[in-house]
């Protein structure tokens, strides 16, 4: 069993996937392409990375209020993240999550979720597969 973190429910649901993590705030409008799901912002940790199917982990959003519709666009084009985990969710992300049906939790200590970790979201509960187990799994794969 991995680490269990409890957050505040923004939009309920279950999801599982690998964490795509940014320690920098995410700009939705103008950076996240709703047709391809690829994030573009020079110098940003997520630059040129696709968000589709990932558990998107970030501190907070920044920028225009039209950002809610970007999340909706992602859901329509089939490129939405599987879930979102934030330190602090604002109105723009909350509305976007609800109208797009993306499970979302905030008030989570995101420093405890490493990039690439396998994460399960169950309502307001976040389960992070432990590093230890990942390491063991990799060792097993590499060395049989």
């Amino acid at each position, binding site marked *: 069993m991995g680490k269990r973190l409890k957050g505040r429910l*923004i*939009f309920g649901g279950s999801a599982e996937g690998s964490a795509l993590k940014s320690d920098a705030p995410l700009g939705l409008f103008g950076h996240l392409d709703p047709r391809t799901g690829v994030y573009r912002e020079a110098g940003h940790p997520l630059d040129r990375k696709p968000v589709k199917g990932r558990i998107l982990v970030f501190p907070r959003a920044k920028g225009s*209020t*039209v950002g*809610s*519709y970007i999340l*909706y*666009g992602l859901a329509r084009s089939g490129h939405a993240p599987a879930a979102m985990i934030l330190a602090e969710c604002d109105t723009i992300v909350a*509305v976007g999550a*609800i109208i797009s049906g993306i499970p979302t939790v905030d008030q989570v200590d995101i420093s405890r979720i490493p990039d690439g970790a396998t994460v399960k979201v169950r309502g307001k509960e976040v389960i992070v597969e432990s590093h230890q187990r990942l390491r063991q799994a990799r060792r097993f794969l590499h060395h049989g």
Partner: protein
Amino acid sequence: MKLSGAGAAKAMEILTALGRIHGARGMVEVGSVQVSGVSYNNIGEHGLAFLEEWAGMGSRAVVNATMNPGGADRRLWKSLGFSQGFIRKQERVIAALEGLGIKPTLTCTPYHVGAAPKLGEHVAWAESSAVCFANSVLGARTNREGGPSAIAAALTSMTPRHTLHTDEGRLPTRIVEVRCAVGTSADAGTLGYLIGRLVASDRGGGIPYLMGVEPPAGLECLAWLKALGAGMAASGSVGLFHLDGVTPEALAHGRKLAAAAKRNSVITSLAEGRRALNCGKGRIDLVAVGCPHASPEDLERITGLLNGRKARIPFWIFTAEDVRRRAEAEGTAAALKKSGAILVSDTCMVVAPLKELGIMTVATDSAKAAFYLPSHHGASVYFGSLERNVEAAVRGVWVSA
């Protein structure tokens, strides 16, 4: 009250989540709603798809709900150079919102077209300049809503009770003492621009209590207050200001209100703001005033300043369709037309697709527009008083002060 349809259920879901995020104490009934996110240029294909889906759920507004400006003048679009493709999309946005029971007023100044809330009335308004005006000048109570949260309020007549809906959420965060002349509305906008940045790090984006300054008497008073609020709502995220001896809550509670402020600042000059906002270069493509939308009094002032002279370059005055119709009935519109000025409705310079219209350099008296045009449209902006803008229109060039 009867709420029906999946649309209203979706609305409640949004409002409940927002209430939870903001620690709201339940919901409060609202008297009116102003919806933003109407211009297709802003919301794009996905915004349109969302509104059409919501409209298809069969719920309608249960309170008086009005619309922000869209991306084009519905009457004059062709002669102003808008493309048919854009108009088709814009009309679909408006149709979807009308399907949700929202009236196509298409103005950022609902208070000029019969939707002015009363003192202490709770409303749910989006459009930052209107929020600031409603809270500060009219003494109504609204948070800074976004497009979807305002629609949700329209479908349910409810909004989460927090922040600017509560007494404690309206206490000032900072006393701002102004020690310089703030004469014109453009000056008031510049002051607003400086204050918005100054208080941005205060609680909730800041609630300034202004001292040492007052609006001019007469026709320009409301324009001055509008410009002040629009400026601070644009450069920062101010939803309410108190003006000593002028705004209703400052009048009612006086310096007792000011005593709640934890911080103090002094503004001694507008020069830095003027430098930041007035960055125009080269030939002016368009002189544009009416951001926020011009009032009937503004139109009278412009007519007086033109004094029968002709504009040599395009001169657009943005206003509500309702105000334009009144101006047509009263003859102001005819005088303006004779001078070559065009009354443009249903849209504004911030949300219209300026690039598509080939507009790269704009002269304006609006600090809000001067703040947004470079970042939103890549436009270069000359910024100064209404008087200087009228001179620019008549002479065809920007005359340095």
